[in-house]
């Protein structure tokens, strides 16, 4: 039993050695092929690769710079378009010497897929910010760099409100009253036009630039300036509530009492 086990074990070692030798020869082949490939990149595909590296670096740089306060969409829309077009170029161009498509040469070559992954993450950033919803679409339904009318209008109203707040900021007693109108203009526009519209047509996605600006303004308004809706005296509410809350007492008291009276009445012995 033991001997046969050790035999199998030994034969496995032989097999392993054989495998190692044979694979090392094949890797040698592959390396040569790879050197070949690098040489090939001297053509226009290589240029595209370099181009893509530049563009995505710029775009990433822009994104990080505009992360706080959030102005990513409006600031980096140019960079995004360039990254997009370069990546498309890689997809569509051919090597002018060999005629092989750059896509075959650069994409899907290894399991790490740096190009695809970086592009995915860049596109994801754009998508998660719902940046598409800040800009106009042209007739064919493709995205343009022009801001939407609603975005422009929002920015206009925001500027008025922000200016007003900045101007009266130190005067905390009157700022709520003076800037109420511009602030409400902005808030109403956000709630009724942008938000409702988005909910109806764009499954609730609102351009993140707008959302963030609105959140920041609201936070200044409600938290910093404490312009909260003041509690009115709720006398009618209190009266109505206490009336209703006293109902159980009436109900149970009355039914208890009436039962008590009835049982007293019936239990009087008849002479």
């Amino acid at each position, binding site marked *: 039993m033991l001997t046969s086990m050790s035999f199998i074990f030994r034969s496995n070692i032989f097999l392993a050695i054989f495998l190692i030798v044979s694979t090392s020869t094949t890797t040698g082949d592959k390396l040569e092929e790879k050197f070949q490939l690098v040489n090939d990149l001297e053509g226009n595909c290589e240029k595209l690769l370099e181009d893509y590296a530049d563009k995505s670096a710029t775009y990433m740089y822009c994104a990080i710079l505009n992360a706080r306060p959030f102005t990513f969409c409006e600031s980096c829309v140019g960079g995004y378009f360039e990254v997009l077009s370069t990546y498309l170029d890689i997809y569509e161009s051919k090597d002018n010497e060999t005629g092989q498509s750059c896509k075959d040469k650069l994409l899907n070559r290894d399991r790490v897929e740096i190009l695809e992954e970086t592009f995915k993450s860049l596109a994801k950033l754009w998508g998660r910010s719902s940046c598409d919803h800040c800009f106009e679409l042209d007739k064919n339904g493709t995205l343009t760099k022009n801001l939407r009318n609603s975005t422009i209008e929002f920015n206009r109203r925001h500027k008025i409100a922000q200016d007003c707040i900045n101007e009266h900021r130190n005067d905390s007693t009157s700022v709520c009253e003076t800037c109420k109108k511009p602030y409400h203009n902005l808030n109403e526009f956000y709630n009724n036009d942008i938000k409702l519209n988005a909910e109806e047509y764009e499954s609730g996605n609102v351009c993140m630039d707008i959302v963030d600006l609105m959140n920041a303004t609201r*936070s200044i308004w409600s938290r910093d300036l404490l312009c909260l*809706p003041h509690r009115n005296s709720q006398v009618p*509410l209190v009266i109505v*509530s206490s009336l209703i809350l006293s109902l159980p007492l009436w109900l149970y008291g009355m039914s208890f009492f009436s039962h008590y009276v009835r049982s007293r009445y019936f239990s009087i012995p008849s002479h």
Partner: protein
Amino acid sequence: MAKKKTMLLFYRPINDRLSTRGTHEINENIAPQYESLDYDICENTLMRREEDSKGDKFVFRKRIARWFVFLLIGVVTALIACCIDIAIEELSSIKFRFLKYYVDLCMNDRCMYIPHLYWVATNIVPVLIGTILVTYVEPVAAGSGIPQVKCYLNGVKVPRIVRIKTLLVKSIGVTCSVLGGLAVGKEGPMIHSGAVVAAGISQGKTTSLSKDFHFFNYFREDHEKRDFVSGGAAAGVAAAFGAPMGGVLFSLEEGSSFWNQSLTWRIFFASMISTFTLNVILSAYHGFPGQLTYSGLLNFGAFPNISYEFFEIPLFVLMGVLGGVLGALFNYVNLKLTLFRMKYITKKWLKVVEVLVVSSVSATVAFAMIMMIDDCRPLGQDPTKFPVQLYCGDGEYSAVASIWFQNPEASVRSLFHDPPGSHNPCTVGVFFAIYFALSCWTYGLSVSSGLFIPSLLTGAAWGRLAGMFLEYLFPNAAWTNPGKYALIGAASQLGGNVRMTISLTVILIEATANITFGLPLMITLITAKWIGDLFNEGIYDLHIHLSGVPILGWEPPQLSHNIFASQFMSYPVVKFNCIESVARIVDTLRDTIHSGFPVVTSVHDPRNQQTEAGTKLCGLILRSQLIVILQNKIFVENKEEWMGKSITLKLFRDAYPRYPKIEQIYVSELERSYTVDLRNFMNPTPYTVPLAASLPRVFKLFRGLGLRHLPVLDNRFELVGIVTRKDLAKYGTNH
């Protein structure tokens, strides 16, 4: 001497004798209106004759039909559950949108009392419909229905429990009461609906609408019907929680006293079909047609990354203890309240008024809580269907309002699944106190109302509170997930209230699609049950005992082997002779309320044929059989009239389940002098016990065989007494 002693034992007043024993309390509160079901098949001549005439084909057809009926039960139960679900969903979303609109509108003006009044009104109107239906149309539809179904499956015929009218009132009633903002759930009524559906479909006729479809008439007996009803209850659970296994186990745990393996398989089939149908319809309703794995179908939502550590198990046990104590408190308060109601709130209009008061107070308390507690959360992080801003800053919503502006079921889900930090401890604490009181106050009102969801919600609230506290104690620990503790709290509160174990564990496992969490759930539920049982019974059993239903527990009373049949049997026995005069039968039926009568024949002394040596039991006949005999005038003297017609079991089945009363049967003066030969109709081989049979022995016979009457014979095999379910139920039950 020995004989004298037994005689003495006989004739001492029964209570006197028992009170000396001391250990066994006698429950005198057994209501007379409840009758037993006849689970035991009456093997009379007619039945034997019928069996002779049927072949294998009939057996095969009956078997197929049985499966088909279970299929139908599953489908129809799920359809009803869907109707209730969707109706509640749609109508309540209209209601809350309306209320939100007015709350938002009134923020700036001084008119907060207007949304409040609207809230009270939108509560009162549906609740009024619900309570009028329940109070005036079908009072048996009140409450969750689980106690009644439990009694039925235990073998007690609760009047009107499985009628189509009850089904209608129940399903409309529960929709109304959930819609009316009462602290109720729809699960219990769904289970009851399943039971009614099962009883209805399997009979192929409805007496309420007086329509006989003339199919499935071979299922028209208590034995078959009760099997179907246990399947229906299971299908109801399956539809209510999306838990087919839980349904089967519910039926097993709460319901059927008599169980066999092939029935389990059929019941599982019905539950599976029910869940499947429900999922098909609801997935289409939610906009994902055909996606049966759509996660929104899970009742309490899936817990994706739930994990627990060993050291948490003592915490779960502690929470189980708390749940048991709170559950016992709930039951105690509810018991006192129910007693008060039984004594003082007896008029029907008063019951309606009480319901209206509860519903308007529910709205008021909720509104007051919303107005008083400031708990603002930023919008967009947690899913809230109707965010109300109220006094919060722009872009925020009131977390208190969002708990109240949804159905209790949705609140359970949000307490389970909202991310950590989305609730304020103060809000959850106050909510718990209010909801505990409201649900305790609401259960027992004259409305259709389930208890599962309110208990789960109360438990989820304090469970989440506990989770938040742990989170506060161990801020950096990964295991403190308030949602997980909310689930444990919910389980323990529900376990403390209803004291179910296996079915509840499995229902919760299935409704959250989480098998790994089975152990903590089980530990919590067991602890809650044990702790709760130290104080009182489960809420369903309390209500069953309050209404005086003679229910038999799982096991005979403890330490009762010294109680003999002679002590608890009823005597003297009203009996008939094999050939009995019509006059005596009619008079006896009119003068007594018994439903089974032993049939005896006199035995002559072998040495002297002239003197009667005593009587001998030769069978048992039921009141219902006698009624059918009288109705069809099957007398000895008019034999030529009915001999031509076939007297088969069909005659008895057609009258099932509602036999006429004796007063409704006209017997002429001439007919009174006729006689009836009972031998063809009676059950010739009833089970009997000797006088010395002990209580546990008799109890096991009743439970195991589903008996209704058990004649007691003395040592000369003469009939001396009879044991019925009520005689046993007096001894109370041990679970």
